[in-house]
């Protein structure tokens, strides 16, 4: 069976969930061979083997942290040359898309970004994408070269599928471009203890209606009662009430949880773009005409300052 390269997104050896989802999709198209780079690369092997990686190619070098994007492209290109895979899958983060694009150009291949599903097809992998703010679904494929496809988080279930996961050192020589953009400082994002926005099964978001940074505490309390991640509309982020890393929408994160709860959010097209594919959508808004109600499975027309705390209390008492 043909091999499929899977680019591993990890933090010091801890594999992030979207990579495990990629392994599920990769197994539909071939045998997953993972590529893990940078500090802790070899520590990813156990988790990757558990989820189906037959091989884990690793390479550690300071360049991966000290310079932007290009060292990773060099390494992935080395892996493509070593393996001659049937496809290359990369998680659809901002960086993942940039790595994938430059790789595709170098190896003379087409690229598909932000796939939400992947199937084997007669003429290579077929990717499903959601476009125009999720109002259309397309099926595409790469027609030239080795398909390079980036896949959004929450596109597949994580499945255990134990495989050998044999670690092999990848040999990489960095290109002249590798050291072009220096990372002179890095401030890691502080963990909130809540689930990762793009990976969460439930997302609770607040918008302009929340009316102040301090009021986001009621959104957080609802999120915590459900074990959910917290999101925000751009209006709330621009007002400085919540960090940009939590913005949901076209220029923020796109989320596809089992349940999305929007409070005080009108449902502008750019917000929809980031949440419209959620399985179940719930909204609380005092304006019965708000466009968000066109999307909902369940909506409450009311003041979020009444409804949200009451909901949180009720959830807590039901959970005991």
């Amino acid at each position: 069976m043909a091999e499929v390269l899977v680019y591993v997104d990890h933090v010091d050896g801890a594999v992030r969930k979207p990579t495990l989802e990629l392994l599920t999709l990769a197994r539909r198209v071939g045998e997953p061979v993972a590529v893990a780079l940078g500090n802790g690369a070899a520590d990813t092997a156990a988790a990757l083997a558990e989820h189906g990686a037959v091989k884990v190619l690793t390479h550690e070098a300071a360049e991966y942290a000290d310079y932007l994007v290009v060292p990773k492209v060099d390494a992935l290109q080395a892996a493509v040359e070593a393996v001659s895979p049937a496809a290359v899958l990369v998680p659809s983060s901002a960086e993942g898309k940039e790595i994938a694009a430059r790789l595709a150009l170098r190896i003379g291949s087409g690229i598909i970004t932000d796939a939400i599903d992947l199937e084997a097809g007669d003429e290579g992998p077929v990717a499903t994408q959601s476009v125009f703010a999720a109002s259309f679904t397309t099926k595409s494929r790469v027609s030239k070269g080795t398909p390079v496809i980036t896949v959004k988080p929450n596109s597949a279930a994580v499945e255990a599928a134990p495989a050998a996961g044999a670690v092999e050192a990848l040999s990489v020589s960095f290109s002249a471009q590798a050291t072009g953009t220096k990372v002179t400082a890095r401030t890691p994002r502080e963990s909130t203890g809540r689930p990762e926005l793009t990976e969460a099964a439930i997302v609770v978001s607040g918008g302009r209606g929340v009316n102040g940074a301090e009021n986001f505490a009621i959104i957080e309390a609802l999120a915590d009662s459900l074990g959910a991640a917290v999101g925000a509309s751009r209006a709330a982020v621009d007002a400085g009430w919540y960090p940009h890393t939590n913005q949901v929408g076209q220029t923020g994160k796109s989320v596809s949880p089992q349940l999305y709860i929007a409070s005080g959010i009108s449902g502008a097209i750019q917000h929809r773009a980031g949440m419209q594919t959620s399985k179940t959508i719930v909204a609380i808004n005092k304006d019965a005409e708000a466009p968000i109600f066109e999307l909902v499975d369940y909506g409450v027309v009311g003041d979020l300052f009444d409804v949200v705390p009451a909901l949180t209390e009720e959830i807590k008492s039901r959970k005991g």
Partner: protein
Amino acid sequence: MSLRIVVTVKYVPDATGDRHFADDLTVDRDDVDGLLSELDEYAVEQALQISENSDDDVEITVLTVGPEDAKDALRKALSMGADKAIHVEDDDLHGTDALGTSLVLAKAVEKAGYDLVISGMASTDGTMGVVPALLAERLGVPQVTLLSEVSVEDGTVKGRRDGDAASEQLEASLPAVVSVTDQSGEARYPSFKGIMAAKKKPVQSWDLSDLDIEAEEVGLEGAYTVVDAAAERPARTAGTIVKDEGEGGKQLAEYLASQKFI
């Protein structure tokens, strides 16, 4: 010293319009009004700010690859304050993918001459966010992308990139390709004076032969990907809407429990 900035801007169908596909499964650009992609306004804004904060002689050229109407996007950028514009237009460009677009932009940028290219973070129609990285790869210059803060001094570009896991400070020597996010600062509105001045600013038109690009390298034929099908997402089935008369929170909890979320 002089600094030549090229800002790449895209003309896109209005996101609030009813966007759809044409019969050949390319984006239908006829039925929906187009405009300068809002995310590229941020790129124009940063170019203007770099110019205003610089002691050098700064020349800002806006560049678009697109159909006849794409001139509107150039005019808007010129009225914001850019100095001149280049429009790459050719019938053979219809259906060009990101790889092809980056080829055309790279050739045009090289022909125009540049020290710094500034792009938006993503186009609002394709939303791939890959063209700036592709452009840097093709030009063989540093990629300093997705910046929420940018400055240029003494031949060096610096900026802040807010990633998922960390916020990073970046630095590279010019020439370089930069892209800026919508966190980089609100774009200005064109003034009346700016709009009048823009009418007199030069707009050059180039076609593929001006850039030594063969028709087969771009367009639908040159594309590296094919769209086999496009279907409108089925409308969501109308949900239940209740009015809160004191029980809204409880009713919602009941619904969530019925769906096994609690």
